C-alpha cells in the first residue's frame, strides 16, 4: 500500500508571486511581521521592479509546475524607478489577454499593486488568489512535463 497517496490529499496549488523589491516585498514582510496568515504555498520571488518580469518568467513558472502566477508591484505612480510599473501593466495586460486567447484559464494570472504599508492587502490578496486557483484545479494547459522531477 502506497504510503504517499496523493489522490486522497487535498489539492494544494503552487503559486508563484513576483514581488517588487520596494513595495510588495516590503508589504509581504509587513504581513509576516504583523502575524497575518497566508498559505505557505505562495512562493515569493523578489524582483527589482515589476517591470523586470519578462513574459518568459511567467510562462517558465507555469512550465515548472506553478498553478497560478501573480505579479505584485508598487501602485501606479509610486514606482521606485518612476515609471517601471506602467510598462509592466501594459505588458501583462497583453500577455494575459494572449493566454486567455489561447485557452488558458484567465484566473491563473493576476497583477496586484501592493504598497509597503499594505500587509493586510498582501495577505488578503494571496488568500483570495489561492482560493481562485484552487477552484480552477491543477494547471495542465501550460506545463511542460519535461521540466518536472518524478
Amino acid at each position: 500500500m502506497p504510503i504517499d497517496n496523493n489522490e486522497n490529499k487535498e489539492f494544494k496549488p503552487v503559486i508563484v508571486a513576483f514581488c517588487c523589491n520596494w513595495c510588495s516585498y516590503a508589504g509581504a514582510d509587513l504581513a509576516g511581521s504583523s502575524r497575518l496568515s497566508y498559505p505557505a504555498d505562495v512562493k515569493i520571488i523578489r524582483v527589482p521592479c515589476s517591470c523586470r518580469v519578462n513574459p518568459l518568467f511567467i510562462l517558465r513558472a507555469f512550465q515548472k509546475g506553478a498553478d497560478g502566477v501573480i505579479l505584485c508591484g508598487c501602485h501606479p505612480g509610486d514606482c521606485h524607478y518612476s515609471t517601471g510599473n506602467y510598462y509592466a501593466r501594459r505588458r501583462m495586460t497583453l500577455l494575459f489577454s494572449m493566454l486567455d486567447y489561447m485557452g488558458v484559464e484567465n484566473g491563473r494570472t493576476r497583477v496586484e499593486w501592493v504598497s509597503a504599508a499594505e500587509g493586510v492587502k498582501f495577505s488578503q490578496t494571496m488568500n483570495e488568489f489561492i482560493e481562485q486557483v484552487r477552484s480552477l484545479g491543477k494547471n495542465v494547459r501550460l506545463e511542460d512535463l519535461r521540466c518536472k522531477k518524478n
Partner: protein
Amino acid sequence: MQEKLVSRAKELLSDGTVVRVLGWRKGDTDFSAEPAFFESAESLDEFTYDGFCGANLSKYMIKASKEEGKTLVFLKPCDTYSFNQLIKEHRVDREKTYIVGVGCDGKLDIEKIREAGCKGITAVTEDGDTIKVATVYGDKELKREDVILERCKACKGGKHVAYDELAEGCDEEKPAKEGRFELVEKLEAMAPEERFAFWQNELSRCIRCNACRNVCPACSCIKCVFDNDRYDTAQKANTTTFEEQMFHIIRAFHVAGRCTDCGECSRVCPQHIPLHLLNRKFIKDIDEFYGEYQAGEDTDSRAPLTNFTQEDVEPSIVKERG
C-alpha cells in the same frame, strides 16, 4: 512590368546611384520566388517579379545596410511598413537605401492553386482578377481572390509609406480591405476549452524549423532567446505540444507593437500554422486598449509597449470582460 523594373535597375546601377540591387529571382520552382542580390547588369537577367514574389525584402536591408554603397530595393506597399519599422529601430540605414515602390494586386499562393484542383501545373499567368493556370491536363481559370495569400485578404492598401520613386503600376489610392480581425473575433467568441483545443491542434504540428522567426522583419535580434548557446545551435527538439505553445507565445509577444502584420510568418510556415492570428490578437488588443496603432506607418512615434499613460487599463480587464 518586370522588364521595366529590370531596365530601371540597370540604369541606376550604370549611373552609379546604387551598387547592388535587392530583388527576387526564380526559386526552386517557377511558382516560388526567392530574394536575391544582383551586383551586375548581366545578373539582372535572372530578376523576376511576378505573382509569387510574396517575400518581404525589408529584412535583407539589415545586411545590405552594413555593406559599402547604396542598395536598390524593390518594396511592395506592405513591405514599406516593415522597412519603416526597421528604420525606427535603427536596424537599417535609410541613406544607404534606394527604394523603388512596386505595385501589388495580391500575391498568389501556389498551395491554394493546387487545392483548387490544379494538378501538373506548367504555367500560371495573371490577367487582372483572373488567374490562368495551364496544366498538362488542360487550362483552368481561377479568381484571384480565391488563391491569394492569407495576408493579402487583409491588404493594408496600395499606399507606399516609404519610397524614392514609384514604378509604373502602383495604385496609391487602393483602399485597405475590411475584416482584418474577423478570425480573431471568431476565436474570441469560442469557449476557452475550444480555443485551447484549436491552438493545441494547430501548434502541435510545429516542427520548430524557426522559419517564422527567421523571416520576420521585426524579429531581428542578433542573439535570440531561443538559441541554445551551449551547443551554438537553435534548440529544435520538441517533446510536447506545450513547449511549442511557449515558443509561439513568446515569438508573438516579442514582436507585439512592432509587428506590421506583413504576414510573412504564416506564408513561410511549412506546417501551415495560422501564426498571423497570434500577431493580430496583439494588434487588436493594442488598438482596443491603447488606441489605434499601425506599426511602420511612421518612423518617429513611440511603440505601444515602450509607452504608457497613467490611465491605462489594469490587467484585470482580461478577466472582467470574460
